[in-house]
């Protein structure tokens, strides 16, 4: 019965993984896209988070900003997901032991749970606080968690290369 380490090592040994990893062109290009893609995901969601904190676009209803910004966040996330998976395939065996990579994965799960909880609870009643002068505490807490988690993900992602043994 193969364990996770064996699976990672198997992936690492494939032609596909090796081709990306050893290419002087492919790995830097995919990584460059992954780095610049941060702006599309974190930069856009930050605008919504800052709106929830009452710091930008206060004249616009929260739901309208969410509706207009989220498609771009999702588009950016799909780019990040694909490039991230490719990078993870290329470094499967080494990432297995990398604590920065592990923490980043845990944080990614948390940053997904945060808006899920938000949308299932306080956001359900958004029409009651859409244009409120002060957004509800739970909405602001969700925004703060979002910003904090994404910042931590970026830091963890950068640390992966530093932690490499």
């Amino acid at each position: 019965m193969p364990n996770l380490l064996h699976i990672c090592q198997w992936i690492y040994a494939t032609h596909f993984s090796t081709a990306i990893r050893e290419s002087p062109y492919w790995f830097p290009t995919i990584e460059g896209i992954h780095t610049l893609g941060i702006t599309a995901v974190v930069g856009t969601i930050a605008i919504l988070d800052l709106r929830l904190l009452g710091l930008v676009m206060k004249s616009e209803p929260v739901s309208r900003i969410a509706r207009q910004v989220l498609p771009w966040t999702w588009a950016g996330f799909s780019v990040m997901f694909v490039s991230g998976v490719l990078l993870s395939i290329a470094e499967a065996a080494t990432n297995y032991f990398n604590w920065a990579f592990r923490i980043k994965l845990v944080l990614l799960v948390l940053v997904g749970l945060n808006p899920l909880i938000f949308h299932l609870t306080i956001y359900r009643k958004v029409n009651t606080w859409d244009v409120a002068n002060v957004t509800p505490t739970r909405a602001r807490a969700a925004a703060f968690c979002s910003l904090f988690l994404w910042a931590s993900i970026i830091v963890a992602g950068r640390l992966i290369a530093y932690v490499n043994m």
Partner: protein
Amino acid sequence: MFLIVFCHWLAKTHLGIFMRDSTYGFAVVEMGHLLSLAVFGGAVLMVDLRFLGYGFKSQSVSQVAQELLPLTVGGVIAMFISGFLLFLGGPVRYYHNPAFRLKLILFFFALIFHFGLQIVVARRGALRSSSSWRLKLSAVVSLILWSAIGLAGRAIGYV
């Protein structure tokens, strides 16, 4: 001639020596550079998308530019400060790096182009639609410029 002398001088300043020798200095400043990039890039992206008629369609072009001005201007200032600190860690080395030179040239051009345009548009409150092909072209140029700057920055480590 003066530039290289200036770079040598910068390398010998207290801050320069600190950035060069500090174990965590470079990494921490680089994280700041990356985090500022996230906020700045996102704001620039949403402004340029609005110029193209996408994104925050319920607000006018000048409204979006104006609302996000703190993020675009504040963001680029944060990028510049963190970038300058990174540069201080090895001014002469970066001076000779072609990717770094390209990045700086593109950066100064982008500053003038993008912010000159942004501020004009933000102040011209009467501007309601983005049907003008000039606005759309400038948005495309802006996006290409900033992307190129980002890629050039990434290339610094490889060249």
